């Protein structure tokens, strides 16, 4: 579909003047007349229009008169031209619009009482405003409802064929899962090919449907819009931190809606660079875990001895807290503060993360604490903190939308961060961006990208090295930035001198020409963005590979240039916040180094307690090691689940069994909590106040939308009472109080919506330290964890599915309906044929760590020679097949990739 000139910044359109209702208005030539009229503040009724896509012109409501034309014209499809004289009001137009409403209503079933859209229906509003009271020739369509999809029901009797669902799916999300079809004498919306809908299930079609033609199966017929209480909050699944509305009825979440809706259809197309307002399948359909039956409702304390014979017994809060405090104090008295450690999940709010590290450091006096950012995000933060002196990605999402070249390395972005993916899609569609995708699978974004580079599993880092080499070889370097640090550049040249592009091409499986092409596309673009994710930061040498990406950005002059930079994606919502709040042994709040004397003094004074010694800290891996060796006697786990996350070879279970005291604080009885001595029920994000920091550094409000389930309490509340029990007076009555303390200590952190622009400062590092480090960076090129050899021909990747996030989403019945734990290995169809496998055969997967039997299924996105298993499910425990490697600099455990052999079982 042709784009309106106004939306493409590179196309300059002439400015023309036209008259609207007697006022002279200037507009760009060729723009939709409807947009020009709405820009004057006049709202002309329209049902098929939405600013996020091009006008479709099917509803016939937006009629205006244009001088020189006999009949009223549809303003949305009319183009603004010089000298037009337009009238938007008048009795004739009112009658013409009323006719259009009557036309729609005459084939509409008038089943408003049972329709879910009743009270939130544009056709109802239009009928009311235009005073339609009598229909001369009404008839019923009598089309049976299409209930084939697991998520959405299509009631085509109610459809007004406005095409909004099709347009949003095709134009904005570029999924193109819906189409019009002529069936039974009526135009109907069906899934592509008139089959059961099987798409990404983002539900944006549901959001823009102005009538009740598309309904949500999970909340169908359970509500009327006026019964619901709407709370705007932040989604807690991935790092995109989308804004959404939780709609509750009687302390029960009924549905989730997004800012994208037919209700706010007026806007400037350029506004979509700030986000189109939609949410993904996880946000929209993954809310059921909030009031799930599996939620913990009472504290549990293990009675009659310890593991494994004792059992967890429901205990009142007061008694359970007393037990926690007594036993923690006991451990501390007997073995010192160094015998206590803590782990926290990055799904907690900033306030809770801050309070957690304050509790551990100032009250208990230990620096043995870590968060789930350790699983990968810290690789990125440590690398950019080291080289660029910034602590998060330097670009915001608007930069991604407007980039001219985007290098996506090791990320299945449409699955892990769907809404950032929408921005990449918009970059492709509107801003004509060149997208280079480096991944080991044929991902959805690779299908849309102009340069899909499919590499051998585990060689994403090697490919980056090839890009650096190629840029230097092709002399695509930016003379200005490299000229500032000639020594550093010379060192880099020396370091890559031995790197051979041919060798890299042979090992990655991408030809030298393609590497060169990718390098030149990236280097020559005026605005170029690097986005790296799990394929880089969660795979061996993650830290070094991020440094290589920084090198690449530096020599091509992309560092610090507006709209360019190195960026990452986060898997859990508040991984960035966890690092910013100092829930890591190496950082104090505000990412001040833990051994920095000035910062230590500042926080010690503010907290009124001495901080633990600089070298006494321990990260996740070290904490587990110390648990195993018996140095740590008590572990406080907030929302984390290391037993189910880490491979069995790490002996997490054995390590935790050594503990004298394991306290778990979680909304669910996780595998780790089942081993705990005391389990405290925590609230989910829907039941508490706070903030999340998303991947671009925006601090976003989390608002309480319902009362806590059972006797569960917000994490900050539990930690406050725990600190008070341990003799420190934490005087927080709400998360607001914690916020004001953070505001005092970290001025400017609460940017609420508008993150501070960060500019990378590479100069200090480049002139000092770079030369020494870069030599070894490109020296040794290792292959993935376990060396590929003849009898382990398949690269097994554990990764995220679009429909799930971590282990949390497996508690959401809606997402389980969409993507149940099938326990099946995703394989390439050719591989399956070669091995003589069918969809029902069982396979035996063997790695250096062990062997498991599971089902197999063909997956179009998996390339030959690789296979995939979703990391959300431990059935069978595929994670146990993974070899573990710990990063020597950042301590990040790598366990998402293994070489395996597959045979029919």
């Amino acid at each position, binding site marked *: 579909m042709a784009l309106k000139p106004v939306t493409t910044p590179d196309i300059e359109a002439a400015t023309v003047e036209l008259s609207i209702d007697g006022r002279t208005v200037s507009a760009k030539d060729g723009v939709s007349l409807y947009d020009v009229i709405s820009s004057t503040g006049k709202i002309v009724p329209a049902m098929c229009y939405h600013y996020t896509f091009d006008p479709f012109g099917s509803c016939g409501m937006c009629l205006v008169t244009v001088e020189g034309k006999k009949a009223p014209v549809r303003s949305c499809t009319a183009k603004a031209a010089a000298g037009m004289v337009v009238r938007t009001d008048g009795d004739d137009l009112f009658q013409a619009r009323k006719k259009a409403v009557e036309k729609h209503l005459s084939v509409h*079933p*008038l*089943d*408003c*009482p*049972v329709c879910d859209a*009743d009270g939130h229906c544009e056709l109802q509003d239009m009928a009311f405003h235009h005073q339609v009271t009598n229909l001369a020739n*009404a008839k019923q369509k*009598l*089309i*049976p*409802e299409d*209930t084939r999809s697991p998520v959405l*029901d299509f*009631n085509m009797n109610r459809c007004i064929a406005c095409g909004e669902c099709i347009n949003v799916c095709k134009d904005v999300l570029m999924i193109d899962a819906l189409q019009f079809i002529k069936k*039974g004498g009526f135009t109907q919306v069906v899934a592509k090919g008139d089959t059961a809908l099987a798409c990404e299930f983002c539900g944006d079609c549901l959001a823009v449907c102005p009538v009740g033609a598309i309904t949500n199966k999970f909340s*169908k*017929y*359970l*509500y*009327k819009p*006026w*019964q619901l209480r709407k709370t705007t909050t932040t989604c807690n699944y991935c790092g995109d931190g989308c804004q959404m509305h939780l709609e509750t009825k009687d302390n029960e979440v009924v549905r989730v809606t997004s800012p994208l809706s037919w209700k706010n259809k007026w806007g400037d197309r350029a506004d979509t660079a700030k986000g189109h307002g939609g949410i993904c399948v996880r946000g929209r359909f993954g809310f059921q875990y909030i009031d799930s039956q599996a939620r913990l409702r009472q504290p549990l304390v293990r009675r009659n001895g310890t593991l494994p014979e004792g059992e967890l017994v429901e205990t009142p809060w007061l008694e359970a807290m007393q037990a926690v405090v007594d036993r923690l104090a006991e451990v501390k008295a007997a073995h010192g503060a160094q015998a206590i450690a803590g782990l926290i999940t990055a799904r907690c709010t900033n306030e809770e993360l801050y309070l957690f590290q304050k509790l551990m450091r100032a009250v208990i006096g230990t620096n043995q604490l870590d968060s789930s950012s350790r699983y990968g995000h810290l690789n990125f933060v440590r690398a950019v903190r080291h080289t660029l002196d910034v602590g998060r990605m330097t670009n915001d999402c608007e930069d991604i939308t407007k980039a001219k070249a985007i290098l996506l390395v090791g990320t299945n972005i449409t699955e892990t961060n769907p809404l950032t993916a929408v921005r990449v899609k918009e970059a492709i569609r509107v801003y004509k961006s060149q997208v280079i995708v480096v991944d080991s699978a044929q991902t959805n974004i690779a299908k849309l990208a102009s340069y899909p580079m499919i590499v051998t599993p585990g060689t994403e880092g090697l490919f980056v090295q090839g890009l650096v080499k190629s840029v230097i070889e092709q002399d695509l370097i930016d003379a200005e930035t490299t000229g500032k640090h000639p020594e550093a550049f010379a060192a880099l040249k020396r370091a890559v001198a031995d790197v051979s592009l041919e060798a890299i091409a042979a090992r990655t499986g991408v030809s030298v020409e393609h590497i060169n092409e990718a390098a030149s596309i990236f280097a020559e673009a005026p605005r170029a963005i690097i986005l790296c994710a799990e394929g880089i930061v969660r795979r061996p040498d993650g830290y070094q590979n991020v440094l290589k990406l920084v090198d690449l950005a530096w020599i091509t002059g992309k560092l610090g240039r507006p709209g360019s930079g190195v960026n990452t994606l986060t898997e859990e919502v508040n991984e960035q916040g966890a690092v910013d709040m100092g829930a890591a042994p190496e950082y104090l709040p505000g990412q001040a180094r833990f051994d920095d004397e000035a910062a230590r003094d500042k926080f010690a004074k503010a907290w009124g307690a001495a901080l633990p010694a600089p070298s006494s800290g321990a990260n996740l891996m070290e904490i587990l090691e110390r648990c195993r060796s018996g140095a740590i006697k008590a572990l406080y786990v907030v929302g984390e689940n290391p037993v189910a996350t880490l491979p069995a070879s790490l002996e997490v279970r054995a390590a935790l069994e050594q503990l004298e005291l394991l306290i778990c604080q979680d909304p669910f009885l996780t595998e780790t909590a089942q081993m705990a001595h005391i389990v405290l029920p925590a609230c989910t994000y829907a039941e508490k106040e706070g903030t999340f920091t998303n991947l671009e550094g925006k601090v976003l409000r989390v608002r309480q939308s319902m009362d806590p389930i059972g006797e569960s309490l917000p994490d900050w509340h539990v930690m406050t009472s725990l600190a008070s029990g341990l003799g420190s007076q934490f005087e927080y009555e709400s998360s607001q109080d914690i916020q004001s303390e953070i505001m005092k200590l970290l001025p400017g952190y609460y940017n609420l919506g508008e993150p501070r622009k960060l500019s990378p400062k590479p100069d200090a590092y480049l002139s000092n330290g770079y030369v020494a480090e870069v030599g070894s960076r490109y020296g040794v090129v290792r292959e993935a964890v376990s060396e590929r050899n003849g009898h382990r021909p398949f690269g097994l990747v554990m990764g995220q599915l679009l429909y799930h996030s971590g282990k949390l989403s497996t508690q959401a019945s809606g997402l389980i309906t969409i993507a149940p734990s099938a326990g099946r290995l995703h394989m390439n169809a050719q591989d399956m044929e070669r091995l003589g496998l069918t969809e029902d055969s069982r396979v035996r997967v063997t790695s250096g760590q062990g062997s498991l039997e599971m089902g197999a299924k063909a997956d179009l996105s998996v390339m030959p020679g690789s296979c995939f298993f979703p990391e959300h499910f431990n059935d069978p425990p595929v994670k146990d097949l993974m070899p573990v490697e710990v990063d020597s600099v950042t301590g990040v455990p790598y366990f998402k990739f293994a070489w395996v052999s597959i045979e029919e079982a």
Partner: protein
Amino acid sequence: MKLKDWIKTIIFYEILVGMNATLRHLLHYKPITLQYPHEKRSLPDSYRGMLSLLRYDDGTEKCVGCDLCEAACPSRVIKVISAEVPGEPTKRYAKEYYMDMTRCLFCGLCVQACPVDALGMTREYEWAVYDKRHLYLNKEQLLAIGDRAFPVREKRLELQHPNVAFFNVAFTHLPPKDN
């Protein structure tokens, strides 16, 4: 004048005037007070008494769970919990339906709001109870009131007249379209 006044005083004339109506009724006895509960007034058809839920002639509930009564109710008497009809995924009904009759002011707005005439006002008014909680009525109780108060039931909407707008119909039950 004086004698006349004197006689009036003698015969307690003022009292006789005052007791006129009383003495007349003493002779012509015709009571107005109904001997409730032995006698009951006949009520007009539009009497707004106890609320009830109605059924169609085939015994199915009329209520489609549209929640308009809850929206119309000025004193928040009604609570509707709607759901899909089990086994008939295109139909809606009220899974639970509650009326807190302690709060009802019998204004009849819910009856007017109902699009399928599923609510009726009976002529029952004898609802004194010892425990207020007994006035919190659920769907079964309300249907039972409807059953005893409205013995004549309507046909289903789609069977009433070809021009009636009907809905909440399982599409599988529809007659095949003639081409």
